[in-house]
């Protein structure tokens, strides 16, 4: 059977997604759901831009509920994120999977992707567009935590807040970091639907 031979060969190489990546991925999915839903609730209390999020997509029911979720979810998001970062760095996961990113590869793979010719035969190797996306969302994650800290404690961490141009600057950065993560999420979920094997790898490892 072809599935059994496939299994044997990939077993030799280890799983496509190691266990810690799979666990932190799904905890992160829950954390993002909480942080974005409650963040939109908080945003709606005093919209920064000329629009508000549909209340049905927000979490917490009202401002205090949103804040309770947000400042509880932050521990899950940051704790899980730190665990993933430390392990990813220690095991060379980022270096191996995300680097190097060459501009020419990105252009070539992007061209192939939009014309539907980009291969997903080997899920253990990321193409240049994926590398750029995963590294990009990782950076957005770091920025959203740093700007969030600046918003939460603009006096205690005023140097950090100054880095973002003060409290109001940190508000903008926090918003756009959220927007990039949500944009990533839309594409990420669409791709997982288009290549269901990748979803299977993120659940079962292969």
């Amino acid at each position, binding site marked *: 059977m072809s599935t059994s031979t496939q299994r044997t060969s990939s077993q030799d190489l280890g799983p496509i997604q190691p266990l810690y990546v799979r666990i932190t991925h799904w*905890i992160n999915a*829950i954390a993002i759901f909480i942080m974005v*839903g409650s963040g939109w609730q*908080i*945003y709606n*209390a*005093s919209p*920064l831009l000329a629009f508000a999020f549909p*209340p*049905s997509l*927000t*979490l*917490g*029911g*009202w*401002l*205090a*509920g949103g*804040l*309770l*979720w947000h*400042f*509880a979810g932050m*521990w899950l998001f940051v704790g899980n994120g730190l665990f993933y970062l430390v392990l990813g760095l220690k095991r060379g996961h980022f270096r191996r999977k995300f680097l190097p990113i060459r501009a020419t590869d990105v252009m070539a793979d992007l061209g192939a992707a939009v014309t539907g010719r980009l291969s997903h035969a080997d899920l253990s190797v990321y193409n240049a567009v994926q590398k750029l996306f995963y590294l990009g969302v990782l950076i957005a994650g770091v920025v959203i935590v740093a700007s969030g800290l600046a918003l939460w*404690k*603009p*006096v*205690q961490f*005023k140097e950090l807040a100054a880095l973002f141009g*003060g*409290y*109001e600057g940190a*508000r903008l950065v926090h918003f756009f970091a959220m927007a990039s993560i949500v944009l990533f999420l839309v594409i990420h979920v669409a791709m997982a639907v288009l290549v269901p094997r990748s979803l299977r790898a993120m659940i079962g490892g292969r």
Partner: protein
Amino acid sequence: MRHAGKRPPEVNAELLVQDAARLLPDASRRRFLRQVASLGALAALTGCDITDAPSAEKALRKISEFNDWVQARLFNPNRLATTYPDSAVTRPFPFNAYYPEAEAPDVDEERYRLILDGRIANKQPWTLPQLAELPQETQITRLVCVEGWSAIGKWTGVPLRSFLERVGADLTAKYVHFVCAEGYSSSIDMPTALHPQTQMTLAFDGQTLPTRFGFPMRIRIPTKLGFKNPKHVIGMTVLNNYTGGYWEDQGYNWFSGL
């Protein structure tokens, strides 16, 4: 789904629901219930019955209390909020309260007394002229609202620390509780009460504190969110018991430090 979970037998479910329902405004209540119900996956993962709104609310409040503890440790009593030049003051400064501006309480200057209670040696009430005679300080700092917006204002008044020392307050007590003319209340930790920028404000932007900003006296704390800067303050109690406050009792984080 909402009440699918098993609750310990000693907890009265009816009372729990009533208790939690009290905490949320009517329109939002159902939404909160519906949304936590959609978090079934989280419940399955953690094994906690968070699909049950009252227990979810309870768990979130426990974490909020933990966050109070974290913030008290993050708070540096010597760390000053950034001060700004006069040109940076937000003019006009926004009005914000849980009532419309027209309903801001009119406090009679003649009859005004600041009532002191609790662990204070000299509980003599204070009139407005007596407060105005004390040494004043001016600060231009940023007020950050729990809603997210911020504005820079210019506040003048008596440093709360010097007032507490003057009336012989027990500075080792845990809390200072404030009561306002129209019934609002809030309480703060003693380290914040003693912070050099925490002020009993009597004037705003060079003018006697207007009604909309809390005449005759508000507590201005640039190291706390705006709702912890009570207006129209008529009572001050120094004590060791947690007393919460108007918004805090409805779910806003108590410490709310900046």
